């Protein structure tokens, strides 16, 4: 789980943060914090599905479920065999 959180945090930092943005933590609000918008959530979901060979149903991929690295890791864990 910790390793998974590190991977997600690194991906979000790399892909969604601007050069001068402050560092984020596992609890930083991503969607409600305006770091990842609803359109960009699609590419984040695609990354997770690809990385962990899972399929996240659309009704589970809600803004609330994607709102922090911690929450995303819980969601992904649900689908990882």
């Amino acid at each position, binding site marked *: 789980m910790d390793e998974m959180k590190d991977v997600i945090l690194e991906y979000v930092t790399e892909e969604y943060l601007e050069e001068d943005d402050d560092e984020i933590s596992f609890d930083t609000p991503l969607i*409600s914090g305006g770091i990842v918008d609803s359109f960009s959530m699609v590419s984040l979901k*695609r990354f997770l*599905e690809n990385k962990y060979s899972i399929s996240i149903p659309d009704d589970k991929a*809600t803004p609330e479920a994607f*709102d922090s690295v911690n929450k995303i890791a819980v969601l992904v864990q649900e689908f990882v065999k």
Partner: protein
Amino acid sequence: MSNIGSYEDRNKDFDWSLAEKELGYKDGDTINIGWYCSDRICEMGKADKTALIWEGLGGKEKSYTFNEIRLASNTIGAFLRELGIKAEDRVCLFMDKIPELYIGFLGVLKIGAIAQPLFSAFGDESLFVRLDNAKTSAIVTQRKHVAKVRKIIDKMPYLKHVIVVDDDGRKPLREREIAFSLENAVPVESIEIHPTKAESASVLHYTSGTTGQPKGVQHVHYSLISQYLTTKWVLDLQDDDIYWCTADPGWVTGTSYGIIGPWSLGVTQCVKDVGFSAVGWYEFIQKRKVTVWYSAPTAIRSLMKAGDEVVKKHDLSSLRHLASVGEPLNSEAVIWSEKVYGLPFLDTYWQTETGSMMLTNFPGMKVKPGSMGKPFPGITAAVLDAETFEQINEPGKVGLIGFKPGWPAMMRTYWNNEETYKGKFKNGWYLSGDRSSIDNEGYFWFTGRDDDVINTGGHLVSPFEVESALLEHEAVAESAVVAKPDEVNMEVVKAFVTLKPGFEASVDLELKIMNFIRKKLSPLAMPQEIEYVKSLPKTRSGKIMRRLLHAKEWGEEIGDTSTLEDDE
């Protein structure tokens, strides 16, 4: 009693001079939106009334009275003037929904410069084409967005100043960059308001078309007349209202109805500069006691998805009037909002080019869920035959939506693109690019776009712009971009691509291409799906037939394929 009273009565002998009179404007007078939205309200005795309540990340809150808005916009205007910004220079506002965006907009207008707001999620390429088209003199932005400007600044010798509103001194600014802090600046009590006239350019908003680069829609200060009156009659804003427009001023709704409309009426508005969450939005309404809420179908459908239970956990009893804009509001959303909020969302239809509402559902009018409503008084609207551009009078028959030019907020041109502007008019009508029918009671019913432009979450995306950007990716040989149906956003971007030799189709590559477009253009333009194909359908002359791909996505008849190159 609503401000409009009877729609039928208002239509009788309607004249825009009614709004001129209320605003104390006479033909030939100076008319400056910046002054009307701040100084005039103070002169009316509302200097100490709250103009803006702002909430940002991490629970940050700020509040401004109309007098503070007046002083702050003077201060920004004076700063720009000192830098050498002159009347008609273009000043880009490239910020999140922070107070400096709203106040800076007025400051730019006060000195007679042209405000060019741009959506802060735009990537460097999207930013560049818009600044380059306008030959923008200055950009006002935040530290977090400076990196995007730095990537392109060497290509823009005309861009003299990059003004950073939240510089903290941690990293040195570069050439042409300058810090400005509204909080630390000495308030400027009075500045000379530039004597703009009715036809003086005010705002430049960029919108996308099917072909070519984005178009700069140029508005004038006289647009205030219809923005003021439509806000009063359609949004029904009254003196004690707390108004929330969820739109970003990077787009036209956020300026026409997120700045000009409410503040020209002296109404308190609140702004939430935080991403979407149903709970967050309901908490905001509850805490701020929002009375009038102007939002978008995509947001409403997202709230529908979040369910009814979360609504019940909040006290939303302050709400008294709801309206929607951006894309057609489906009947289910109207019915649902009436069920859960006790109020239907009333759809409004207008465009960047129209500058103000054209077809709307008015307070007190019978609501037909799914309909765009009826023309605003003073607006002559019709559906037109696509070949002859003659008016169709048969109820239920679909045609192009056309408007008789002449309302105050109508665009005056496309910046540096008069030819395309002229092409928007046929047989004395302005063509909106949308299709609809009119029923036997005069209600308009949207049926679709008349071109390939993609309306995603209420924002127009040009397939051409995305296709061009896709070709810049090292793996992409050819591309075609169409709209794909989407439950929440109505449409999303879908790309079909062929790959160059040496590249293999994979999910990993799809993700890389998606992110490439997201960063280069914007999250809105990012294809939500990429389909790898061996070849794209083309005419014998080599033109990609988007129509076929679109039909496939929407399960429609493919139609005439006689000009198709091959059918593989």
